[in-house]
């Protein structure tokens, strides 16, 4: 049989899924054991006990200085910024994307502009944001919006444009006005795409968030990582990285489930 036609069974699939993770952990453990054997106070590759201790300190014991449970207060601070940024971007993408996709006049006005804006490197704008908006949450949220909104707007505009012309014509023959067609024909068909688009923008959004927190902040997951870096606290950095990854993975998964639950037809179309 050709390779392109051989498929793993259920068990094999699960094994294959876990394999890279197991290998990664095994490689790390081997490295950790080797380094600690040489020098028991080595900080670069802490062992499991070291991690457990650090996690316990960060997540379950109050910080002696502030009395806060740092992992949780960092998570809350970061997630608020992340979701505020993504939320604003989503609304902008919906409104602007649909308008650009549907209305030729707005397309002529905004499409080239958005294309140019999306090429501005967001991190290069960060100093401007700090100067204009101060060092608080606003500038960090703004960075996320500048980083992800233009791409989302373009993606949704493309999606709205891609709808078969026949569908729009058909809606017109059913008596739909521009507004009604936007509401009942275009919007519902690009919402699933919006969710997918949001999923794809999760990792750039995290990137911008951590970059902004690293440069100037007093809380947040990115802030903590860069703070403890000074003390080579790998035992804290590693769990934080894993935790951030986990948050992103879970958000990604939930968004996809939401799409399938709310727009069952979008999954049917994929299979059709």
């Amino acid at each position, binding site marked *: 049989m050709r390779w392109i036609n051989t498929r793993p069974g259920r068990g094999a699939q699960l094994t294959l899924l876990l394999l890279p993770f197991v290998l990664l952990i095994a490689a790390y453990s081997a490295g950790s054991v080797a380094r600690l054997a040489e020098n028991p106070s080595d900080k670069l590759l802490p062992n499991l006990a070291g991690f457990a201790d650090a996690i316990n300190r960060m997540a379950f014991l109050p910080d002696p200085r502030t009395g806060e449970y740092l992992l949780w207060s960092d998570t809350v601070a970061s997630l608020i910024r992340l979701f505020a940024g993504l939320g604003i971007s989503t609304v902008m993408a919906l409104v602007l994307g649909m308008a650009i996709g549907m209305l030729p006049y707005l397309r002529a006005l905004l499409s080239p502009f958005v294309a140019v804006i999306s090429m501005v490197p967001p991190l290069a704008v960060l100093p401007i944001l700090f100067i204009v908006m101060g060092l608080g949450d606003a500038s960090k949220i703004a960075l996320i919006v500048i980083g992800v909104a233009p791409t989302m707007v373009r993606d949704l505009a493309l999606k709205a444009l891609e709808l*078969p012309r*026949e*569908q729009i*014509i*058909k*809606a*017109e*023959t*059913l*008596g*739909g*006005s521009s*507004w*009604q067609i936007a*509401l*009942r*024909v275009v919007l*519902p*068909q690009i919402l699933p795409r919006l969710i997918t688009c949001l999923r794809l923008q999760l990792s750039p959004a995290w990137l911008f968030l951590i970059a902004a927190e690293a440069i100037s902040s007093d809380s947040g997951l990115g802030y903590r990582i860069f703070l403890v870096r000074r003390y080579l606290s790998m035992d804290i950095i590693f769990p934080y990285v894993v935790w951030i990854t986990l948050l992103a993975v879970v958000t990604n998964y939930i968004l996809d489930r939401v799409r399938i639950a709310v*727009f*069952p*037809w*979008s999954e*049917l*179309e994929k*299979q*059709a």
Partner: protein
Amino acid sequence: MSELIIENVWKEYGDQIVLENVSLTIASRAFVALVGPSGCGKTTFLRMLLGQERPTKGTILLDGQPIPTEPGRDRGVVFQRYSVFPHLTVLGNVLLGKEFSNARYKAKLLGATRRNAVEEALQLIGEVGLSGAEQKYPAQLSGGMQQRLALAQALIMKPKVLLLDEPFGALDPGIRVEIHTLMKRLWHETQMTVVMVTHDIREAFTLASRVVAFERRRDRPEEKQRYGATITKDISIWPPRLAGVPSNFSPDRDGPIDSLGYRRDDPALSGE
């Protein structure tokens, strides 16, 4: 009444003349089949009737009035593909026209208006043989069922003119016979004028009351650009077929209906 008068219509795309000097008067409630070689401008002609394209020269009148320059509810349409909305169920697809005309801003119906509309939609769904599939999405329907859905969706608007662009071209012969019967019945029962583009001469003569052929008079490669297609044949079926008048003299060229039996493409009716 829904008489179409096409007077000396020309259509050019840039340098290319697609249609030249087309004049045609289509009586109210006629069923005109347009045939002709591929690329001769049948779809272009239909688009002009739809209001999606404007003639370069000439006029098109519907009931004595110039045809509106955009698609509207007086002219229904069924395309070969993409005629139904993938994000709406069968019922939702048929209801959409009602919702557009009765709810200006929300484009959604509630309460008694909705109940009445649903009743009307269900009846139409039954008439095109889709009872039992009301809650299915188009991706869950066969090609023939989708086209029947597209018909029902257009018919709920009670259009003056129904425009069909190779609506049954992609269906297999057994299913086509069945949908022909439906098409004939709908033509007899409603008040509309039908213009149908088809590649299938047999289909044209089976259904139509009049068959119109488009062709280029000069078709040498060097002349292709400069000479468009025009009406070369205009055949009225004899004895005349009239909407609403059963005729024993026009035998159904598709052959007896009874032989259809379980060739139906509609699993919903057979209980699935």
